[in-house]
């Protein structure tokens, strides 16, 4: 099949960007979306043009490195799929696709479709951990975790940190990302001692970056490649309220 791509091209974070239109021919349904872009890049280089920069690594949907908007939808709009796993069989001959980077103040564009997501690391630094220095930890079986808590922790921990939630949110909020880590750690017995400090510190770090706030659009859940539910934002807010009241009450 043949496709028309309108791709955001931007030299670096200081330059202005623009859309450039390319034709890609000979795309087959068994290719992945990124393999289609590989093909475009091989052609561009053959013509002496700079290839389109896009981030990717594992190409199996787990490293969280890839991601851009396809026709305005983060990761292309196939539920539970990152762009690296998106198959070309979902597209048809003659399709016209617009590709652009995550759009959020907190994620400055670095080049073409690549953005800077280091704000996520800084949110984790603020409290996204359980302090357990390497050493003689308690025997693993001494800590019992009810299966439903373990399952919820795992549902939340599945977040790959790709940033689609931020890109999809009209407010560019990082609430789903932050809530996922808080829900993971706060659901486990090991996470209880730091529970409320963690929650308020991570929320403060999130607000300190240029992310917006949640106004319940639910776009984040819709595009999340790991199907992380918006319910976790509610859990985070509940813990935040507790943390705030607790602090005020002394």
């Amino acid at each position: 099949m043949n496709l028309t791509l309108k791709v955001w091209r931007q030299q670096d974070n200081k330059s202005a960007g623009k859309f450039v239109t390319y034709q890609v021919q000979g795309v087959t349904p068994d290719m992945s979306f990124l393999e289609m872009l590989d093909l475009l890049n091989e052609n561009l280089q053959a013509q002496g043009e700079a290839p389109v920069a896009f981030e990717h690594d594992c190409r199996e949907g787990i490293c969280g490195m890839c991601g851009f908007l396809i026709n305005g939808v983060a990761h292309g709009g196939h539920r539970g799929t990152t762009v690296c796993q998106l198959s070309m069989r979902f597209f048809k001959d003659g399709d016209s696709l617009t590709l652009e980077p995550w759009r959020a103040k907190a994620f400055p564009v670095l080049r073409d479709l690549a953005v800077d997501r280091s704000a996520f690391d800084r949110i984790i630094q603020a409290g996204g951990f359980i302090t357990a220095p390497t050493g003689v930890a308690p025997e693993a079986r001494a800590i019992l975790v009810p299966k439903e808590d373990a399952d919820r922790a795992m549902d939340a921990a599945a977040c790959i940190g790709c940033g689609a939630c931020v890109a999809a949110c009209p407010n560019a909020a990082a609430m789903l990302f932050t809530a996922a880590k808080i829900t993971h750690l706060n659901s486990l017995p090991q996470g209880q001692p730091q529970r409320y400090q963690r929650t308020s510190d991570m929320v403060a770090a999130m607000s300190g970056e240029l992310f917006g706030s949640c106004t319940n659009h639910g776009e984040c859940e819709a595009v999340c490649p790991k199907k992380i539910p918006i319910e976790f934002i509610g859990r985070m807010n509940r813990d935040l309220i507790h943390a705030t009241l607790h602090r005020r009450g002394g």
Partner: protein
Amino acid sequence: MLESNIPSGPIEEKWERARFEMKLVNPANRRKHTVIIVGSGLAGASAAASLGQQGYNVHCFCFQDSPRRAHSIAAQGGINAAKNYRNDGDSIHRLFYDTVKGGDFRSREANVFRLAQISVNIIDQCVAQGVPFAREYGGLLDTRSFGGVQVSRTFYARGQTGQQLLLGAYQALEEQVATGSVKMHTRSEMLDIVVVNGRARGVVTRDLLTGAIESFAADVVVLATGGYGNVFYLSTNAKGCNTTAIWRAHRRGAFFGNPCFTQIHPTCIPVSNENQSKLTLMSESLRNDGRVWVPKKKGDTRPPAQIPEAERDYYLERRYPSFGNLVPRDVASRAAKEVCDAGLGVGPGGQGVYLDFADAIRRMGESVVREKYGNLFDMYEEITGENAYKVPMRIYPAVHYTMGGLWVDYRLMSTIPGLFVAGEANFSDHGANRLGASALMQGLADGYFILPYTIPNYIASNPLEKVDTSQPEFAAVKEEVNKRIARLIGIQGKRTVDSFHKELGKLVWENCGMARSADGLRTNLEKIPMLREEFWNNLRIIGTGAELNQSLEKAGRVADFLELAELMCLDALEREESCGGHFRVESQTPDGEALRDDDRFSFVSAWEWKGEGDQWELHREPLTFEHVHLAQRSYK
């Protein structure tokens, strides 16, 4: 010349004895010592976090945008530990035995025993960090079985165990970043190491956003940069995985151990198109419940459901009745290749075998199968468009892991003093074949529990004069790195870097893949240098070195693969025996199993770089087996 530094005494006491004999660094003095850690996967992140906690001044580098992206994240199935929670006969000694046997007797007994001992601490440590391992209804940790063993000792977090263990280490690392003990350098690629007075004292890196070439000085350099499976172009590795860090260190004097020992994983989604850029693994855990088969008749194109039981060959169960579908990876891969070579393969091109869950679904119900493997079935459907609850999966072997790597002693130090190597980047524990769920175990053992002892010991035992990056040794390496980049950009030929990488990958896959012959290897030893020659004369890179330039990044990595590939073939040619993943067609039993030659090859190959254009020199570290009886490996 090769001193493995294995402590004396009974094997059970070696590590304890070594730990006691190791020198310590006073807590107040630790922050005066700088440790550079390259790589932020399980080994790198866990080492950086642990050394940061102890108070060292740690600099950690990764080429990705965040340490959380490292390819450890993609490990699916699990992590082994000799906890014996199941009361099914497991023990440290059995994990040790299984690993030495699984590695086809080409690993060091002392290292493997230590690994088995540490395995139990790893699970405790990870649970304390909040890694959400799978639990039973009573709240206890769940385990499952993996290939090559008959106990259930694999701990897991759905099909995302690597992700969860890595995030645990990453979070511990970020906590140290917040305290200031670790400085994280993301989007920084190490392009060379700096040796001063015979010791590793720093690295030269390229900032991947600006192209700036920078140097950093330290007392110790750790490489935890993963394996080199991408030399095959198509593999289950992430696209960025590369050999550059260890290869550059090799060229500076670090011996390369067993380069030909590569693992071909039996359960991957088959290649479907010419533009394919990577292969996707289906976790080995699937072989717990899936049954592998092909039609008995050649050219049987009926849909699988219409092929009656009597006309199916469950070849693993037939050939290996005691281990069945859970034979080790090398055995399962070779068996798949054999049936496909015999014309019995299924799917387009006949390069595939069925992995069938129909029996498991009948026995346990679809919901239980979904609970155990749901995300893997989803992944399979995303890629192939097929529903594996209804039709069997099609799988084929693919390059997955490299047991070879930089040679290290018992303390994980390479032949360059002060250069330590951890995780997949070293050659140490898996011999000629790694068992499933052992990579995560080794990466974390190295990072959490071995380097935090051996690095302080090195610092405390050696006079480390002050160095800084203004010294001429640093400037000289920077100059070399700059020249090499300028040379790559200056070629201005006609071919893209990917086209060279694909061509190299095909050569290595065909002649140094699942089956290797002297003729094929000699062919490669002629063709690879020719391809390298063409690469350096006909490569075309668009753009400059002073910007984000992904083609330039790839070019540097492919240039190193083009050298490594030659050494792999040389090593494979030299080793005239079959062992584990290294199958020389000239050396097999009458029924087609790998035939070792212990009299001639019971050693670790450690190759020394002798300079551009000169032949490598082979050093041999003899392997002795006192606790596991050397025997023909049998899974029948």
